């Protein structure tokens, strides 16, 4: 079997003096969708940020596509083909939709789908109607679509999606799930953090469950759905 696209082992991360992550380990294979699951404050966001190089201090074995990420700054990691979609959206509110996409644009990458604004507008028809609109005047769902589209403009081969379904209306959640499946079909690998089992089970192949910054369970999504004990211990509220 070939090396997975992303390999994380022994991931440690700190905010100031607070030791947040302790030994997170997971892999994402090519074309695979993996759900990182856990309760509020478990460390899902921090894990994704640590992969992206956005925490002050981290230590880990971090390999992506045969490269070592552990010493690289965020923009270098992004340029290697890791796309990051933050949970709090963080669109550039003063910029128009098209300008937001322009910020994310990077040259096409062999082995990853190549995106243009037109292709993205086809994927997210809502956005097409508001190309010239500034981010301040968009709904939460539209902002979430824009964040994803903006990251796709970098033609990533791996997508880090932080709670894509959080705070969205059911209709938008279904569109989001549909979009993730389309991306997988295009050949993208996805690591998404989720609290919603239904969303995760709709899109993910495998799951990795964490609690207070430590790995607790890894297996297939079907396996997780079948294991009431694990779900009750680490996921139920």
């Amino acid at each position, binding site marked *: 079997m070939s090396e997975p696209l992303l390999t994380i082992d022994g991931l440690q991360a700190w905010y100031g003096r607070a030791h947040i992550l302790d030994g997170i380990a997971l892999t994402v294979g090519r074309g695979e969708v993996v759900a990182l699951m856990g309760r509020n404050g478990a460390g899902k966001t921090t894990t994704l940020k640590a992969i992206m190089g956005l925490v002050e201090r981290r230590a880990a074995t971090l390999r992506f596509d045969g490269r070592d990420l552990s010493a690289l700054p965020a*923009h270098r990691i*992004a340029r290697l083909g890791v796309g990051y979609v*933050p949970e709090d959206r963080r669109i*550039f509110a*003063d910029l128009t939709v098209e*300008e937001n996409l322009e*910020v994310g644009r990077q040259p096409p990458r062999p082995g990853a789908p190549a995106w243009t604004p037109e292709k993205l507008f086809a994927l997210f028809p809502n956005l097409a109607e508001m190309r010239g609109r500034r981010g301040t005047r968009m709904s939460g769902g539209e902002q979430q679509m824009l964040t994803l589209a*903006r990251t796709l403009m*970098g033609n990533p081969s791996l997508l880090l999606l932080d709670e894509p379904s959080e705070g969205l209306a059911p209709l938008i959640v279904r569109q989001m799930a549909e979009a993730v499946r389309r991306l997988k079909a295009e050949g993208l690998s996805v690591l998404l953090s989720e609290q919603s089992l239904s969303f995760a089970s709709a899109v993910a192949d495998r799951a990795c469950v964490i609690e207070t910054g430590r790995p607790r369970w890894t297996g297939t999504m079907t396996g997780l759905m079948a294991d009431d004990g694990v779900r009750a211990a680490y996921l139920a509220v």
Partner: protein
Amino acid sequence: MSFLLVQALSGLATAATLFLVSSGLTIVFGVTRIVNFAHGSFYMVGAYAGWSLIERFGGTPAGFWGSVTAAALAMGVLGAAMEIGLLRRLYRSPELFQLLGTFGVVLVVQDLTAWAWGPEDLLGRRAPGLKGSIDILDQPFPLYDLVLIGLGPLVLGLLWLLFNRTRWGTLVRAATQDREMASALGVDPARLFTGVLFLGCALAGLGGALQVPREAVTLQMDMAIVVEAFVVVVVGGMGSLAGAFLASLLIGQLQAFGILVFPQITLVLVFLFMAVVLVLRPHGLLGRAEEVPPTAPATVTVPLSTGGHTGSWALALLALLAAVPLVAGDYALILLTEVVILALFAASLHLLIGLGGLVSFGHAAWFGLGAYGSALLVKHMGAPMPLALAGAPVLAGLGALVAGWFCVRRSGLYFAMLTLAFAQIAWSIAFQWYAVTGGDNGILGVWPSSWAAGKAAYYWLTLALCGGTLWLLRRAAFAPFGYALRAGRDSGLRAESVGIDVRRFQWMAFVLAGSAAGLAGGLYAFAKGSVFPTLLAVPQSVDALVMVLMGGIQTVAGPLAGAVVFHLLKSEVMSLTDWWRLVLGLIIVALVLVFPRGIVGFLSGLRSSFVRRRA
């Protein structure tokens, strides 16, 4: 009528230069959130470099404009170098460090420029093809100025296109809003910011080089323009290009017509205009509230400790100091007298910064007002020394009362800019009101009464007055007044919610600090026997900041240690060289980069790590 038109046009020409320089300053601030004190230095060096190039190549129009462009580009390169060498390390620092660090660059550049081009003012040649003037309603108006007037809107338009119609501009705007997100999208913010400094400093250099045909190139250009550019940027709204354009126009006209009505106080008019605008429109004419981020706290909020034995230590130190005249000669006493005075000056500033979190960039105003107050009482009223000394804190306190009312309305950078503006008002009065203050010549012959004329006697007097005032300041720091100030500093909103009128306490602190600085100024005037406008100028304010910073902000003893080290350094080490600005500038930069916690902080850090290692 036609005369007024020509006056308005010359105001427009001034405005164009002002806009070129201010646009660079506001762009750099908008992106990096740093107010770059050294911006005027790029203007000045741009003018010097432009002068040299124009002397050599400026005989033809192509040579002239090529020279101007080359000077601007060279300044851009220097600006980029400063970003890489200095600013990059200051993005997360409190604004006090950013202002001081870039002021260190001002000092270094001043000496390097004097070294390269000499101290003489330089007159450049006129622009080929634009030497004449045209008649506007029968009044002659220089052609070159007409070109400048056109250049202002042209540059504004080009900058607008750059920021709104190019990928680079889009990336800069994105990184301005959210640096981290931009970097997660593959944008290298460091390179972007270097580019922004290139652009901003090139604009300053362009403004400078374009002045060569209009006025003499001098070593004073840097401070003059940067202070005016501050005013423009603050009035227009920090970070707003259109605001800078509008403010330049208004201030250009204010200067053009102000000089007709109040030729003595044109500078005062400009600063008063800024103070009024800020009170009416806190974010400037076109600024937006969110343009100014919540400012990083000026201080690390370590609680001050009263320290068990501080009182007895202080008394022992006082006794020791009082005994010095028994062993020391006159020279040492003069030096020590100055150190004691400066310690009070620094401690009064520390009250504002350390307790109130209010970073004043114009504290010299009160020191100078006290000094001038004493000197004027002696010169014009024949007052005896005790009366003149008593007048110093009163006059400074009154000045601080008025200025403080404006200043405490704003916090952070705006507070710093407002205090700077009031200090510049005081300075320009001392500098321009020749009949009363003697202008640049100052006031001489301010000597102590005969009973205090001996060096030892005056030293004891100084020690007693400064010691007493320091004791009062310290009492205030640990009284409810001091706690209220600190509560306001650490969390203004929370303090308000428990019923503390933060602004009122800050105002009181401003007046108290101003009076104490005024007393120091009065003592200084009699110690020196003379006063000069430099006592109120920006470098004097910076000296106070450096003393506070050298000692360390977190401790009450810090400013005292800072005053000792700084004054000895300045009078003993820097007097050995003609290049003291260079030395001082480098010291400031080192302080900001390497010892941000000051001497006392550094020592206590050493001590606690030593204790930890032994434990």
